[in-house]
C-alpha cells in the first residue's frame, strides 16, 4: 500500500516538474530582465508591432526583453484585474479611459509626469491628451498613463453615393436633414449606427460636447451635478429628434458595429456614425467591395454656436503599476513602443493618429487625414473629452442600453438620463 502511494506521489511530482514551468520557455534570453507588455487589442489592430518588438529583442545591446501579449477581447480587463489581484501585474499594460479612471483613483498606477518631462514630451504631447491622462478628478495635473492614439467622433459617408445623388457634404443640421431626405427618397438609409454597442452613446456624445462641454460630466461624477440635468436632456433630445426624422435609421437600434458597418459598406446606408478607430473595421469589410470609397464629414454643427466641433478620445492609456518591481525596464519598453521609430512605422502601415503632432506626417489614409487636418486642430483641448470615457463602466452600459431603447422608441430622453443618474447613485451606495 505504501508502495502504491509512493508511486502516485512520484508520478505527481514528475508531472509537476515537467509541466510547472511550461510557460517560462517563451522567455528564451534569460540574461536580460523580461518586461511584460499587455495590449487589450487584437494583434490585427497593431499588426506591425510584433515584428518591431522581435527586432528589438534580437538586438543584444538593448537592456530588456519585451514580451508582448495581445488579448483582443472584452475579457481583457477581467484578466488584468486577476493579475493585480494575484499581486503580479505586467510591467506595462493598456487601459481604456473608463477602467483607467478606476485604477488611477485607486492609486494603482505609476506617476509618469517626470518621465514625460525627461523625454521632452510634456511640450509636444497634446495638452488635451495630457489632461486626459489622470484620474477624473486630477487636481495636481499629473500624468498616469501614456495616451496612445487619438480618435475623433465622426460620421463616415459613402463618397460615390453622395456624388451620384448630388449630395453636398453636410455642415449643420439643416444640410444633414437635406442629405437624409435625398438618401431616403432613393431608398437608402441615411445614418446607421451600432446601437447595441457604445455607438449609441457616441451619438449623444457628439451633441453633448457641442452643447454642454466636459465640466458637467466631471461634476456629475463627483456628485455636484446630475446626469439628468436639463441641458443633458436637451442634448439627448436632439439625438431623439434625429431618429424621429429618420436621419438616424431606427433599424440600427438592433445592430452591433459589425452589422452597422456591413449596412454601410454594402451600400444600403449613406452614412455610418462612430469614431475614427472604426476605419480599420470598415477597411477590412470594404476589401470585398471593390469601388467602395468613404471619407468622414469634416464638421457638423448640431447646435448653433457649438462650444467645440467634435469630442475626441485621446486614446487608451499605457500604464505602469504603482508598485512595479522593474520601473526602469517598464519605462524602457514605453520609450521604445512610443518612440518615433515605432510611431513612423505604425502611422504608415496601420494608419493611427498619434497625440504628438509631428509623428503624424506620414499618415495617408484619406479619412484619417481628414480627421487630422480638419478635426484635431479645432478640438485639441480638455473641453473636448469624450463622454463615453468620462462615466463609470456601469453608467456607460446603462447609457448604451437606454439610448438603444430610445432609438427603438421605447423611452424618452428624460427617462434614459434619469435611469443613468439612478444607476450612478446605486453604484456609489454599493461601493461604500
Amino acid at each position, binding site marked *: *500500500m505504501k508502495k*502504491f502511494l509512493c508511486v*502516485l506521489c512520484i508520478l*505527481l511530482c514528475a*508531472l*509537476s516538474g515537467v*509541466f*510547472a*514551468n*511550461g*510557460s517560462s520557455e*517563451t522567455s528564451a534570453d534569460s540574461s536580460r530582465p523580461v518586461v511584460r507588455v499587455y495590449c487589450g*487589442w*487584437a*494583434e*490585427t489592430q497593431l499588426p506591425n508591432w510584433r515584428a518591431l518588438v522581435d527586432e528589438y529583442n534580437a538586438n543584444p545591446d538593448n537592456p530588456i526583453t519585451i*514580451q508582448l*501579449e*495581445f*488579448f*483582443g*477581447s*472584452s*475579457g481583457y480587463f*477581467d*484578466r488584468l484585474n*486577476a*493579475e493585480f*489581484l*494575484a*499581486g*503580479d501585474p505586467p510591467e506595462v499594460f493598456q487601459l481604456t479611459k473608463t477602467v483607467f479612471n478606476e485604477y488611477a483613483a485607486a492609486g494603482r498606477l505609476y506617476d509618469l509626469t517626470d518621465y514625460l518631462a525627461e523625454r521632452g514630451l510634456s511640450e509636444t504631447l497634446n495638452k488635451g491628451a495630457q489632461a486626459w491622462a489622470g484620474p477624473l478628478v486630477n487636481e495636481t495635473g499629473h500624468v498616469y498613463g501614456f495616451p496612445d492614439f487619438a480618435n475623433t467622433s465622426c460620421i463616415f459617408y459613402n463618397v460615390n453615393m453622395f456624388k451620384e445623388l448630388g449630395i453636398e457634404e453636410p455642415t449643420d443640421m439643416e444640410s444633414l436633414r437635406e442629405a437624409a431626405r435625398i438618401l431616403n427618397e432613393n431608398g437608402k438609409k441615411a445614418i446607421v449606427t451600432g446601437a447595441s454597442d457604445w455607438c449609441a452613446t457616441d451619438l449623444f456624445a457628439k451633441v453633448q460636447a457641442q452643447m454642454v462641454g466636459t465640466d458637467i460630466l466631471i461634476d456629475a461624477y463627483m456628485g455636484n451635478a446630475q446626469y439628468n440635468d436639463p441641458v443633458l436632456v436637451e442634448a439627448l433630445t436632439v439625438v431623439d429628434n434625429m431618429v424621429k426624422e429618420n436621419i438616424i435609421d431606427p433599424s440600427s437600434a438592433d445592430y452591433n458595429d*459589425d452589422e452597422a*458597418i*456591413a449596412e454601410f459598406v*454594402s451600400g444600403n446606408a449613406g452614412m455610418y456614425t462612430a469614431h475614427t478607430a472604426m476605419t480599420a*473595421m470598415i477597411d*477590412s*469589410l470594404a476589401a*470585398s467591395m471593390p469601388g467602395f470609397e468613404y471619407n468622414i464629414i469634416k464638421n457638423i454643427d448640431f447646435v448653433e454656436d457649438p462650444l467645440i466641433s467634435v469630442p475626441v478620445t485621446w486614446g487608451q492609456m499605457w500604464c505602469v503599476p504603482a508598485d512595479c518591481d522593474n520601473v526602469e525596464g517598464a519605462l524602457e519598453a514605453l520609450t521604445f513602443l512610443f518612440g518615433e521609430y515605432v510611431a513612423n512605422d505604425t502611422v504608415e502601415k496601420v494608419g493611427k493618429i498619434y497625440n504628438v503632432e509631428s509623428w503624424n506626417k506620414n499618415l495617408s489614409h484619406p479619412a484619417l487625414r481628414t480627421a487630422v487636418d480638419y478635426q484635431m486642430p479645432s478640438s485639441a483641448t480638455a473641453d473636448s473629452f469624450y463622454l463615453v470615457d468620462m462615466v463609470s463602466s456601469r453608467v456607460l452600459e446603462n447609457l448604451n442600453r437606454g439610448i438603444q431603447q430610445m432609438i427603438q422608441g421605447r423611452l424618452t430622453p428624460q427617462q434614459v438620463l434619469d435611469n443613468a443618474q439612478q444607476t450612478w447613485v446605486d453604484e456609489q451606495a454599493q461601493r461604500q
Partner: protein
Amino acid sequence: MKRLIGRILIALFLIILSILTLGPLVWTVMSSFKTSGELMLQPYSIPAKLQWKNYADAWRLGNFSTYFINSIIVTFISLLLMISVSSLAAFGLSHYKTRFNHPTLLYILFGQMISAAMVIFPLVIILQKMNLTDSYIGISLVYAAGGIPFSVFVLSNFFKTIPQGLFEAAQLDGCSEIKKFISIALPLIKSGLATVFLYQFLWVWNEFTIGFTLIRSSSMRTLPVGLYTAVFGVLQTNYVVAFAGTVMVSIPTFIIYLVFQKHLVKGMLAGSIKA
C-alpha cells in the same frame, strides 16, 4: 390506417429532430467552405468551390496548433489526476462503511452546485500563492478538483454494484486492500471509468470560463479560449475563417464522442439514477 399515420408522425419527428440537431452544424460546415461574398449573398446555398484556404488561414491566424497542444496536455493531466483520485475516493466511500460516509459525500456533492464563475477570483489568488500561475499543472489541478464531485458520485455507484462476496473471498486469500482495489474492483468498473472519462473529457476540453480567466499568456491558451479570442479579435469580421476555426475546434470532441458513445447510456444507467 392508424398505423400509417403513426409512421408518418414518427418520420416527421425524425426529420425535425435531424434538422434541429444537424441543421446548424451542416450550415456551419458549409459556410466554412465559402468565400465572404458568397456567405453574404447566398447564405444557405452550397459553396460553389470548396475554399480549403479558409482552414489554412484559420489555422495560421488563429494560432490553433499551439492551442491544440495546450488543450491536449491540460486535458491529459487533469483527467489522469481526476480519475485516479476520484476512483480511489469512490472505492473508499462505497467499500468502507463508517460514520463519515454520508457527511463526506454531501461535502463533495456540494461542489457540484458551484459554477466556475463563482470561484475564479479566489482561484487566481490561490494559484499565485502556490506559484502555479500560468502553468499546465495549475490549471489542470483546478479542473481535476472541479471534476471530483461528479466523478466520485458516478464511480461510487459503479463500485456499489460489485458483489461483496468477491471481496470477502479475496480477503480470505490474504489479499491487501490496495490489491482489492486494483485487481478486483477497478477491472469490474471499466465501463464506469469510460463513462466518467467521456463526460469529463467533454467538460475539460470544452471548458471556457476557468481557462479564460486563469491562463495568462497567449501561448498557454486552450482551444475554446483561443477560439473565443480569435473570433472576437483576429477574425472579427472574417466570418468564413471563423467558421472554419469553429469546425476545427469541434472535430476532436466528435472523435472522442463517437469512440465512447456506447458508454453514454450505460454510464447513466449505473451512475446517476440510483441516487
